């Protein structure tokens, strides 16, 4: 019988934690979400010697305060799930700051094994470590690893097993704070120790935090209270009879403020860094003077005040080309593959409802999901490369000033740029934003960046209603309005929908390094699979629903088969929706036919044109899509005659298409990324309202001024 061990992997961002995780578990990984938050939960498993080891990859954090959901999740996993060992991945070339997390992990009272990673880089920079001494000084097992070369993984696992079975010979060591602080900690700790026993008796499951009576946790809680940790404070406040503890905390804080003239949290941080400095001074020597590193040389060019921006734009151009230009042929193959499959089934099945469901509903729906795969695979290859090399934070550094003006983060730029290609990868690309509010706002405004699928609709409408000489300006104005609306909405959302303290931009610029093929591939595979699995099901379901809306009822009120496709569409549920919303969209210059086309546009924007073609009984829809002159002309004539279209209403229709709900695939992805229906529903709602308002203003204003009528 194998013994089971659970380990949690902790470490700073850029410490090489993910590489160590991949080395340990290989492909045996599972990605999910922590309940209630959008923090990703990664788990993996492996066998080593006689042990089955489960590995929880905690989010990368610099500290364990309540600063971000990531930090709260990381420490809650350790407290609540009680892993047998915490493996702390430490970047040896950046030792002092990395050990700051180590000291906090130690305070939680779990056995910690430190994986001293990137030792090759550190040694190349002239750093020499006395591992044994460092291990004694810090009170942790230390194993030397080089994640990118898969060195030290076995030794690390051996150390984990040793620590889990309590056979570690390292003497216990903790940070000792200043005498004044230690005194106050024990004052508060004493009260908590009395309280927690009583709390368990009163309500056994108040909180797993307090069901634990260990001295470690009591000391940790006391420390957190003194340093004003919001999360811990809230938990203690909810306890009956906690007033005494809180009173003592306030007294202690006042006392500390009085004698040192500083916030108590400074004493805590300072105490930890002093402890680390002491250890490093003894166990770390620099054999050569701190010379200019390769990273510094590269940054002299890449972050140059003159060259920085053009280089950044060039890299963005490459990323865009990679995603959409290289991605376009495979997308066409997939598209024609599904068309051929649909035709084959049409030919081998008797015509009827089942055939229509399979061909138009299911194959159309699955095709609609799979078609984005080349884009997504390529984009994430590019993003993984930018992240793993370390350029991503430089991109944020370059763009932050501009993005910050509208309340966003420098990292919001990339997803918004990707949005010009397709909104789905844009929403997925927001994963690079650590702050949840920044990420949500970026996701919510990225649909306003006009995606590639909307372009054929614009060009057709422009060809039909505008003179060639103004075509370029009309198109440009649509794109520009999209950008302006996105920036405005970002500001509005930041102010009213997701208000709060502005997030600081305190970001590490990690050393450049060459990414490993394995880590890029794993990253790419993970994202693509998640997209297929989670968003795919929603997109498929929605496309079947839309198919039903356009297919039923198949007969008129008398039970007769409807003669023409345009009449069938008018009498279908979608047609009825079009009629029903006519009064609402009439002030925008739209009739029910446009209403039906907009309903169809929910499947994908490019469908708007073919739907209108069907409604106007234009036989050759392919010629229309290819913008053949004759078809465009008869489309324009029919639209004028039947729906009273003018250049103004055509322009307003373009605006509506630009702004309203991008497509159901976007809604599906947003649901998956935000873990619920709240934000997708909000996005659908706000884009519809915004589209209506903008179109109303433009249409009525245009009428009043007599432009384009």
């Amino acid at each position, binding site marked *: 019988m194998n013994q089971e061990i659970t380990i949690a992997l902790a470490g700073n961002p850029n410490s090489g934690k993910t590489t160590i995780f991949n080395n340990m578990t290989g492909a045996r990984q599972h990605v999910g979400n922590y309940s209630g938050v959008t923090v990703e939960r990664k788990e993996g498993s492996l066998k080593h010697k006689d042990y089955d080891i489960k590995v929880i990859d905690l989010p990368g954090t610099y500290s364990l305060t309540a600063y971000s959901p990531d930090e709260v999740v990381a420490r809650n996993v350790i407290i609540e799930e009680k892993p047998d060992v915490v493996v702390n991945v430490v970047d040896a070339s950046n030792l002092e700051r990395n050990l*700051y997390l180590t000291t906090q992990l130690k305070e939680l009272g779990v056995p910690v094994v430190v994986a001293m990673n990137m030792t090759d880089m550190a040694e190349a920079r002239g750093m020499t470590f006395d591992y044994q001494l460092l291990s004694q000084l810090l009170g942790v097992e230390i194993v030397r690893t080089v994640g990118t070369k898969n060195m030290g993984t076995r030794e690390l696992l051996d150390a984990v097993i040793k620590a889990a079975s309590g056979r570690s010979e390292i003497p216990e060591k903790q940070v000792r704070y200043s005498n004044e602080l230690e005194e106050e900690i024990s004052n508060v700790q004493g009260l908590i120790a009395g309280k927690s026993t009583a709390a368990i008796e009163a309500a056994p499951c108040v909180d797993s935090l307090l069901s634990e009576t260990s001295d470690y946790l009591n000391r940790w809680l006391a420390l957190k209270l003194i340093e004003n940790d919001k999360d811990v404070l809230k938990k203690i406040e909810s306890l009956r009879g906690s007033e005494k503890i809180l009173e003592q905390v306030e007294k202690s804080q006042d006392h500390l403020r009085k004698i040192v003239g500083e916030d108590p949290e400074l004493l805590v941080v300072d105490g930890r860094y002093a402890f680390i400095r002491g250890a490093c001074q003894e166990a770390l020597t620099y054999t050569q003077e701190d010379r200019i590193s390769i990273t510094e040389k590269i940054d002299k060019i890449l972050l140059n*005040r*003159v060259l920085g921006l053009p280089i950044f734009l060039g890299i963005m151009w490459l990323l865009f080309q990679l995603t959409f230009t290289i991605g376009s042929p495979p997308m066409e193959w997939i598209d024609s593959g599904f068309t051929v499959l649909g035709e084959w089934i049409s030919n081998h099945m008797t015509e009827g409802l089942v055939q229509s469901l399979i061909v138009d509903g299911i194959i159309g729906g699955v095709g609609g999901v799979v078609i984005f795969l080349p884009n997504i695979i390529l984009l994430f290859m590019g993003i993984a490369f930018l992240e793993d090399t370390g350029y991503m*934070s430089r991109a944020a550094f370059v763009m932050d000033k501009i993005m910050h003006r509208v309340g966003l983060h420098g990292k919001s730029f990339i997803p918004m740029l990707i949005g010009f290609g397709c909104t789905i990868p844009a929403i997925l690309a927001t994963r690079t934003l650590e702050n949840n509010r920044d990420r949500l706002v970026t996701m919510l405004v990225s649909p306003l960046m006009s995606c590639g699928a909307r372009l054929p609709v614009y060009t057709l409408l422009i060809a039909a209603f505008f003179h060639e000489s103004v075509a370029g300006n009309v198109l440009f104005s649509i794109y520009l309005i999209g950008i302006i609306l996105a920036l405005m909405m970002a500001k509005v959302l930041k102010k009213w929908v997701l208000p709060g303290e502005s997030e600081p*931009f305190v970001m*590490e610029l*990690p050393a450049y390094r060459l990414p490993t093929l394995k880590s890029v591939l794993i990253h790419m595979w993970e994202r693509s699979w998640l997209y297929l699995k989670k968003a795919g099901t929603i997109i498929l379901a929605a496309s079947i629903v839309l198919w039903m809306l356009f297919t039923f009822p198949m007969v008129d009120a008398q039970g007769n088969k409807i003669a023409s496709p345009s009449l069938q569409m008018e009498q279908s549920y979608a047609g009825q929706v079009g009629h029903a919303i006519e009064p609402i969209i009439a002030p925008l210059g739209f009739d029910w036919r446009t209403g039906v086309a907009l309903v169809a546009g929910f499947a994908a924007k490019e469908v708007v044109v073919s739907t209108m073609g069907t409604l106007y009984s234009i036989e050759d829809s392919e010629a229309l899509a290819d913008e053949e002159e004759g078809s465009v002309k008869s489309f324009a004539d029919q639209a004028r005659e039947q729906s009273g279209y003018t250049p103004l209403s055509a322009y307003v229709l373009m605006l509506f298409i630009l702004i309203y709900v991008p497509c159901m695939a976007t809604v599906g992805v947003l649901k998956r990324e935000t873990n619920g229906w709240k934000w997708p529903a909000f996005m659908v709602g706000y884009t519809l309202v915004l589209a209506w308002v903008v179109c109303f203003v433009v249409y009525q204003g245009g009428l009043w001024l007599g432009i384009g009528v």
Partner: protein
Amino acid sequence: MSGRSLKDLEPGQKARVAKVSGIGSIKRRILDMGLVPGSEIEMERYAPFGDPVEIKLKGYHLSLRKEEAENIILE
């Protein structure tokens, strides 16, 4: 030179942190990243648009906005 903040440092200049003012999570974040009083920092560069700035401390590179750098008072 009292009251000088990190914001006033020119690229290439070195200084020592005297105090971190400001409140709440911003202050805590700055402290957590190792910008504690007494630590030595060097201004590396300004971003192409002049903000944020990049500094070097404890052997690593950190970027922050000028509005945050203002909270870091130098000796």
